[in-house]
């Protein structure tokens, strides 16, 4: 098969990005620099005799790859997507039938392909870790695989971040935050890789970690695609399906529990993640404008805040019920309280947004998200800070989280009432076309 014919089966975006990379010579320059850097690191450790076996050389080479894979490529993907939106090519591309998912996937693939090319520059030096430091080849391969997975995940995060800003100033802020986040992600990943390199790979936890990374990346990917979808599209259902996949994976893992013996804390963290994810879906895909997507039999997957809110409440109820039957009496109150507070705070945010106005920027989903964060922060932190200031031992927000106390049921009843009232309010808003 000729190269021209082979390129027919590739994503058009991937072909375009590789062409642009070739023309700008950025890829060639990066490959040469990576090769030189890897060579210098190897010389430093091999000839200089620095570092203990299984540690120094691999860390240096992995760091070299991480800098590119965890920082430079995600940032390049982010910039590329931002440029598409700024130049207006994004909408033209959507009209070709490619769709946002294929476009984002193309950018992700091009990052991975370029990372693969650069890995080849480091590969000969990685073999030194095997021959000099007796590092297991399988461990090296698995760590490289983990690096590729992290590159993909961080690129998805960067692409998702590119969909958030609406203005130039917002873009600048997002880029700074993203850069900080990627640096943190890079250092964390390097620390984990070094630790694993020393102790050896445990396949089970590694696969579970991969699964978790894939699930979260999938959710972010679908949310990014939904945010970039045209208003004429039925943009809401895919992120919501991704959320269900994430939840199903979480449930399956919790029920199976192959690698841990932990208790309530991880369950609460899990519910927090689920709640936040569900909340994100409730408003993330609810964009301004009149949605005219396909009508789905399950209205929970339709665009709009009402179906998003209902899905959030339903998922919180389901997961709470699931965890509740598996927990002991001591930790059960926490499991009830957290989703109840999430419903209360979300309802408060939606009502406050409604009071702020039905039109204009304050009525936009972005504003609702900000209000939710503020409400959550104030309601959670202020009582705790007051309690700290009064030197009491128990934070008030936790004091009543006990099913044996009547306060717990009052909280639950309040959450149910808030859910019903908010549902009615959103239904009326939808009926009025606002």
């Amino acid at each position, binding site marked *: 098969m000729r190269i021209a*014919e082979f390129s*027919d089966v590739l994503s*058009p975006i991937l*072909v*375009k990005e590789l*062409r*642009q990379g070739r*023309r*700008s010579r950025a890829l060639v320059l990066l490959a040469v620099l990576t090769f030189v850097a890897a060579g210098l690191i190897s010389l430093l450790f091999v000839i200089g005799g620095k570092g203990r076996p299984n540690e120094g050389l691999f860390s240096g080479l992995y760091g070299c790859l991480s800098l590119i894979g965890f920082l430079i490529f995600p940032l390049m993907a982010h910039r590329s997507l931002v440029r598409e939106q700024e*130049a*207006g*090519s*994004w*909408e*033209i*591309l*959507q*009209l*070709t*039938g*490619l769709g946002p998912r294929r476009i984002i996937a193309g950018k992700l693939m091009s990052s991975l392909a370029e990372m693969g090319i650069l890995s080849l520059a480091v590969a000969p030096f990685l073999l030194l870790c095997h021959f000099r430091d007796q590092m297991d080849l399988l461990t090296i391969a698995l760590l490289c695989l983990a690096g590729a997975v992290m590159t993909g995940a961080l690129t998805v995060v960067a692409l998702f971040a590119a969909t958030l800003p609406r203005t130039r100033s917002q873009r600048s802020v997002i880029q700074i935050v993203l850069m900080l986040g990627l640096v943190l992600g890079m250092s964390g990943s390097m620390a984990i890789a070094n630790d694993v390199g020393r102790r050896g790979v445990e396949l089970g936890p590694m696969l579970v970690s991969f699964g978790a990374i894939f699930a979260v990346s999938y959710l972010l990917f679908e949310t990014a695609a939904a945010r970039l979808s*045209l*208003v*004429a*599209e039925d943009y809401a259902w895919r992120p919501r399906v991704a959320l269900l996949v994430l939840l199903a994976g979480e449930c399956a893992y919790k029920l199976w529990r192959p690698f841990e013996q932990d208790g309530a804390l991880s369950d609460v963290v899990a519910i927090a993640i689920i709640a936040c994810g569900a909340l994100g879906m409730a408003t993330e895909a609810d964009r301004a*404008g*009149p*949605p*005219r997507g396909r009508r789905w039999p399950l209205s929970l997957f339709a665009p709009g805040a009402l179906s998003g809110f209902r899905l959030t409440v339903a998922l919180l109820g389901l997961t709470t019920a699931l965890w509740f039957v598996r927990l002991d009496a001591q930790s059960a109150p926490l499991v009830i309280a957290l989703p109840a507070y999430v419903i209360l705070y979300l309802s408060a945010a939606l009502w406050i947004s409604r009071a702020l106005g039905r*039109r*204009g920027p304050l009525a936009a989903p972005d504003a609702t998200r900000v209000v939710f964060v503020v409400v959550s922060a104030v309601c959670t932190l202020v009582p705790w800070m007051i309690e700290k200031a009064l030197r009491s031992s128990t934070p008030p927000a936790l004091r009543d989280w006990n099913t044996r106390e009547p306060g717990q049921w009052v909280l639950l009843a309040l959450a149910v009432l808030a859910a019903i009232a908010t549902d009615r309010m959103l239904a009326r808003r939808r009926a009025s*076309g606002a």
Partner: protein
Amino acid sequence: MLEVRGVSRSFDSVRALDDVTFDLDAGAIMGFVGPNGAGKTTAMRILATLDTPNAGTVTLDGKSVLERPDAVRPLIGYMPDRQGAYDDTSVREHLDFFARAYGLRGERRRRRVGEVMEFTALAPLGDKLFSSLSKGMQQRTSLARTLLHDPRLLILDEPADGLDPRARVELREMLRALAAQGKAILVSSHILSELSEICDQCAIIEQGKLLAVGPVDAVAGQAAGHAAAEIAIRFVAGAGRAAVVEHAERLLSAQAEVASVAADGPAGVRVRMVRPPPGTADVTADADAARLLQVLVGAGLPVCTFQYRRADLEDAFMSVTKGRVQ
């Protein structure tokens, strides 16, 4: 082919489109004119499936643009006012990329890219970077991109914006050729003289409302108090010119095809003619003007200049719009 019925679109308190209704047939070119902020781009974005209206329906070849955007997109070629191109790709790479995006594969893609480059006369510039092209060539590349999937409806937002006279003429010729191929073309522009030369129909929009829509001649005929044409007559200057002007005014006012006569300077008159019956505008107005000249010369009046100008799109535009923006 394209049917737009009662389309309205609001952005918060701003009503960008208000009950817009028109039709466009295959092979026809419709000019979409209006002041800045009139709603032209909003309407075009809705037709191109980039936006959805609050009310109304749009169908293309019987398919709903609003309910089945995926089905109608292959039928639509949209050229926005922004280029949306990649500066660091060559013309050929740019077109090749979009051809891939449209799903064209292998030899078919290469052939189609060659065809559109040939049609738009871009073949000699195939290896030039997009950023190095002139504005006219960039517009041409955008038009070529719009044609790659052989759409039935072309929506062109300000395609002549920033072009030099030669590039405009070439664009005009290309649009005529495309219309001759049976494509329906909706084109917006501020250059009304350009539109009146290439369009069969036109729609004038202001503050989201369609003020006039129909064949160009019919819309132009609505201009300036329903005058079909205007004639500026000058007489030989000299003694007794006031009497000459007065005589001419009396003579012209008595003619059935004259709507009004007014003095225009010390030795001239300005005549506005009544609108002839629909469908006869071209022939009747010309013949009426010729007869008026005969009347004046026959009466022995010293006609120096006789400037006859039929009402055009610009007159119609100035007549029906108020220059209001939202």
